[in-house]
């Protein structure tokens, strides 16, 4: 049954065309990724994380809008997700607050 639908009768075998990303979509995501790299190179991890999260949102939006062929979705999504998880933004103020908090706990005898 499937053969009836799929058989063309010819014996020529050609390589299937590789799927590709649309240039505007790929360029936009690549530019954002470049921005992440630049921010990291400049030592601004918080800006880099913000940009990476933006890249992730744009990636998800592109996937859900059908602008990323399925052959690329897993690789792209996992790479962006991994990148976001690797970029840590350590905020000094929060660390400071946490220190104060710990001190309070010590007063109540809860220790570290």
């Amino acid at each position, binding site marked *: 049954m499937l053969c009836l639908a799929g058989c063309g009768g010819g014996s020529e075998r050609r390589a299937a065309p590789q799927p590709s990303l649309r240039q505007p979509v790929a360029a936009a995501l690549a530019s954002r990724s470049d921005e992440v790299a630049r921010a990291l190179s400049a030592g601004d991890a918080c800006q880099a994380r913000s940009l990476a999260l933006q890249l992730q949102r744009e990636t*998800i939006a592109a996937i859900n809008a059908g602008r990323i062929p399925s*052959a690329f979705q897993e690789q792209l999504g996992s*790479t962006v997700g991994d*990148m976001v998880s690797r970029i840590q933004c350590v905020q000094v103020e929060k660390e400071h607050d946490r220190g104060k908090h710990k001190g309070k706990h010590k007063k109540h005898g809860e220790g570290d």
Partner: protein
Amino acid sequence: MTETLLAAGRYRVERTLGQGGMAVVYLAHDEELHRLVAVKVLAEHLAGDANFRARFLQESKLASRLSHPNVVQVYDAGETEGSPFIVMEYVPGDTLAQRGKLTHAEVVPLALQACAGLQHAHNAGLVHRDVKPANLLVREDDVLKIADFGIARAAELTRLTQHGTVLGTAAYLAPEQAAGEEVSAATDIYSLGAVVYELLTARPPYEFESLAELGAQQRGGVITPLRNVEPSVPEPVEAAVMHALARDPRFRPASASDFAHELASASELPTKPLIATAVTEPLHARGYRSLPGSRAWLWIVGAAAVALVAVILGLLSIGGGSNSSTKPQPLPIRSPARGATPAAEARNLSVWLRAHSK
């Protein structure tokens, strides 16, 4: 099903994966594309109903339009020996029905993935209608995939006559669905909310022994607040889940994305940084993997992909097989190289994106 070959020999059945009232699911090998697939064959007593058979295939074809990392991909559909079958992506792992009670730290990332898959389907105009733990498959790397899109719609009329089947799924039915009223995306959101409630508490929102009792409870009963059953659940998570379980669809989150947004915003999970991204769009499955060693599967998948490519190339170069009608398939796309640092990874991704664009 006595034959071990389906669709003129294209699919070679290896073993039975599961059997329900509606269908039998087999693990099979796609002899053309050299990959494992799951083949769902409609049960004989249903296959005899021509209307149902046609609807089953029609809905399956609609579902095949969906392409999303959190939705089980439908590859093919047809009939064999008078029984309709659907060929789907094989998802090694288990279902949420097999997971039992989970912590909110475990449940929220899974629920977010389910939201992403549902949102994709809703955007395409499809409502699942049967979101339940057994239809939420969790792959070995914790990627969740929603199964059986379209099946529920085809089964709707039939399963109403199958009491046991209905009771098995009724706990997750939205009130409007149980009442036989019009369903919408909000129906799936309720069902997912019910699944999340049960995963967190080990009991469904309503406990009942008959459909009539369920109906009465849904009309006039009150769902026990989540934290009354499981106090460890953070209040915002409880609020998000109870929002999804609103009796009136108008009072539920407006979309699966909105539900995801509420869940993500409510969660404070330090080991899952992506959850804090305040999801305004459905999240991608892989995004939640941040634990050390979580890339190991990528290497395994990559190695398997390379091996598969080698096998395919070998067969092509040898001219293996006489079936020249096999449709040529593109080679799998390799992931961007993982950089030693995040900056290197970002640059690699940029290069990869440009290299694959045209």
